[in-house]
Structure formats: C-alpha cells, structure tokens
C-alpha cells in the first residue's frame, strides 16, 4: 500500500538538547541563557516555515532486492543486505520539510544572521529525522492493525549513502516510490531537493534481525557510528 501523509510542524520540533547535540554539544552541558534564546528562536523559525510531509509504500522482498541492487555499486557485505531478506515488511519512504524552510535558512545566511541560520539548519536536520520517526510509527501502527506485525516488531530505517548502500541507490528508490508527489526531487548527483529531506527503507521485524556490529569495511570511515544508538533504542523502547 502507498500512503502520502501531511505531518504537523508541531510534531517534528526537536528538543533543545537534540538541537544542541546536533551541533556537537555533549548532553547535559549548560549553555546559558543566550544559547537557549538562540535555540528558541530557531525552533520558532522551524515551526513557522517547516511543512513536513511523507510518502511510504510497501514493497516485497524481491522488489526491494532489485531496488537495493540499484546500479550494482553497493559495498559488500553490508548490514542491510543481510537484514532485508529476514524482514517481516519492507516499506520505502521519503519525507521532506518543504522548500520554504530551506529558502529561509539560505536567506538567513545571506543576510548575515549566521548564528540563527546555523542553529536553524541544525534544528531542521533533527526535524527531518523526527519526520522519519513519525513515518516509522505510522508504518508500525498500520502493520499491527493489518496483522503483518506484532508486539515484538521493531522498525529501523536505512538510507542510500549510508551503511554500504551507495547513494546512487536513490535512483531506483525514487523510481519505485515517486516522492516527487511530496515535492522531493533528485539531482544528477543523487542529492535530494529540498535539502532537508530523507529517504530510504523502513525494515520491520523482530529485534534480533536488526542487530549487527559495526565492523564492516566502510564502518571505519563512518563519522558517527549512529547505528549503535539506533540499535540500542530498539531494545529499550516499548512497542
């Protein structure tokens, strides 16, 4: 099933801590009133200019195998290649915060409001991630209602450009998903426009299938090792 959804701006506004975290501030460190004010201003701008929306569509394991194969330039082995054949459901997704937000960030940079612009950019990146979390929830809920998932089912997102899935995979993904309907387009270099957009596959399955260790060939070059946190959260969050 394919679904196109509008997401409320208010539901993707990140916490102050998340925004500061995205700027490299360690959790729990006091930043003072001025920084708090700057984050608050950035979140106001975000609420005002963000127009989150998303699209999801179910694909079979065979269909996804073809999409993942893409232009045959993925790293092998890769965690996703080992995980997706064991998934209960595979759901292509894309989400965007819309063009006006990106234009607002660019305008703030252009007029010299560098502090606010940088903060808004970080807040928008977090908000795009939260749009993904929102889609995870929608897809999980739908799968549970439809009986394709149970209380042990967990969702994890993978995107072209990460974890061995080559960025050129965007082409096959876009062809199958059609996110142009929500205003997301692909450049010749497989970048999404507007910039604050995300895409990939939501993998549904029991917790066990999502687990992997970060010792793939490409992991040493990964600046974040974010997979650790994401996998850990799967075990902690209640269904």
């Amino acid at each position, binding site marked *: 099933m394919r679904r196109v959804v509008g997401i409320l701006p208010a539901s993707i506004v990140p916490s102050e801590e998340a925004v500061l975290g995205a*700027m490299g501030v360690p959790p729990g460190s006091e930043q003072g009133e001025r920084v708090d004010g700057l984050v608050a201003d950035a979140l106001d701008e975000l609420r005002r200019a963000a127009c989150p929306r998303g699209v999801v569509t179910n694909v079979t394991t065979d269909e996804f195998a073809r999409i993942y194969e893409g232009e045959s330039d993925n790293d092998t082995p890769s965690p996703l290649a080992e995980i997706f054949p064991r998934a209960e459901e595979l759901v292509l997704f894309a989400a965007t915060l819309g063009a006006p937000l990106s234009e607002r960030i660019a305008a703030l940079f252009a007029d*010299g409001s560098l502090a606010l612009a940088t903060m808004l950019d970080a807040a928008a990146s977090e908000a795009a991630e939260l749009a993904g979390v929102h889609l995870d929830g929608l897809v999980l809920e739908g799968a549970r209602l439809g009986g394709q998932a149970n209380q042990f089912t967990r969702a994890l997102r993978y995107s072209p450009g990460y974890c061995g899935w080559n960025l050129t995979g965007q082409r096959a993904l876009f062809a199958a998903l059609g996110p142009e309907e929500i205003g997301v387009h692909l450049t010749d270099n497989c970048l999404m426009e507007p910039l604050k957009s995300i895409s990939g596959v939501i993998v549904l399955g029991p917790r066990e299938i999502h687990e992997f260790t970060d010792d793939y060939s490409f992991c040493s070059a990964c600046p974040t090792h974010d997979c650790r946190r994401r996998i850990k959260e799967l075990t902690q969050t209640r269904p």
Partner: protein
Amino acid sequence: MEILGQIAALLERGEDQEVRSLTQSAMDQSLPALKILEEGLLAGMQVVGDRFRAHDIFLPEVLLAARAMSAGVEVLKPHLGKTDLHSRGKVVIGTVQGDLHDIGKNLVGIMLSGAGFEVIDLGKNVSAEEFVDTARESGADVIGMSALLTTTMPAMKQVISLLRERGLDSSVRTMVGGAPVTREYASEMGADGYGFDAANAVECVRELVG
C-alpha cells in the same frame, strides 16, 4: 587599554549589544580602529577559537561570539583602512560543483572571518573556473573547498589541476575538507592543506598563509 580587554571579554560571552556599545566608546576615546579590532575583537575571538579547539566551549557559543564580533566590526568598518579588515589574508571558499551542502563551508567562513581573514564565499555548487577566476581576480591567498558527497570529491581535484594549468598554484594555495575527505585523499589529490573541521580549517589557513 582596559576597555579593549573588556571588549574581548564581552565578545567571548557573546554579548553583542554590549560589544557594539563598548566598541563605540573606544572609538569615542579616540583609540585607533585597527587597534580596537586587533586587541579587542580579534583578541577575544582568538580566545574563543582556542577554547573551541580545546572542547572547552562548543559551536553555539562560537556562533554567539561571531555575532558579537560582527556587531563590533560594523562600528569600526567606516574607520578602517581598506586592507585592515583582511590584513591576515584572503580566502575564497565554496562547496564544489554538484554538491548542495553548505553548512560546513558556512562554519569555516564564520571561523575564518572571526580569525581576521577576508572571506569570499562563492556559495554551493561552485565550478572549478569560478573558484580559480575569483581567486585570481581578488588576489586570494587560499582556495578552501568543501564536499559532503564522495561523488563530488573529484571536483576538488579539478580545481587544483586548473590552478596548475594556469600557473597559479604557487600564489594560491588550496585547502580541502568535508565529511568524506580524509587526510590521505587530500594529499593524494595534491591539496596544500586539509581542514578536518571548522576550527582546524583556521589553523590550516594560518599555516598556508604564514
């Protein structure tokens, strides 16, 4: 000179209004604008940069300090000579062709300006010709290039090749950076410098210019 120390301290705390008014007071006391710039504003930003590199403060505070610095520079600008504002050197920056990510490049620009360099920001998706032509016409010391995509990294190499072709590689140095760019890749493509983050990029430019 107490007032210059105060300006530096206020700038470190990101107090933009106070930096503006105290900079004006310093002007009213007939202190030379260049002295206020160097011993007040830039001295404060130097401390901020050092503390940032030492992970003692983080990006948000650097941004607020940079905002305070801009407030002060605005007061001084009409009274500064043409070369005062970029006596430390001139840097052309941009995100290479095909790449639309510019937040890292913007941060480098903020840090370089805060360190007293003149920055010409060409934006994103910048062609090799545009980098080289701008550097030549403006008499820049350094070209700083950023890429966030592995697929756009070859565009950096094109800029370096074009500089050589035009015989400009001795007068204009190159610096590369961005998430997928490693030190190995930087030296492999013949870049003169490698900035692994915004704070480091300033050090890198200082070495290239010094």
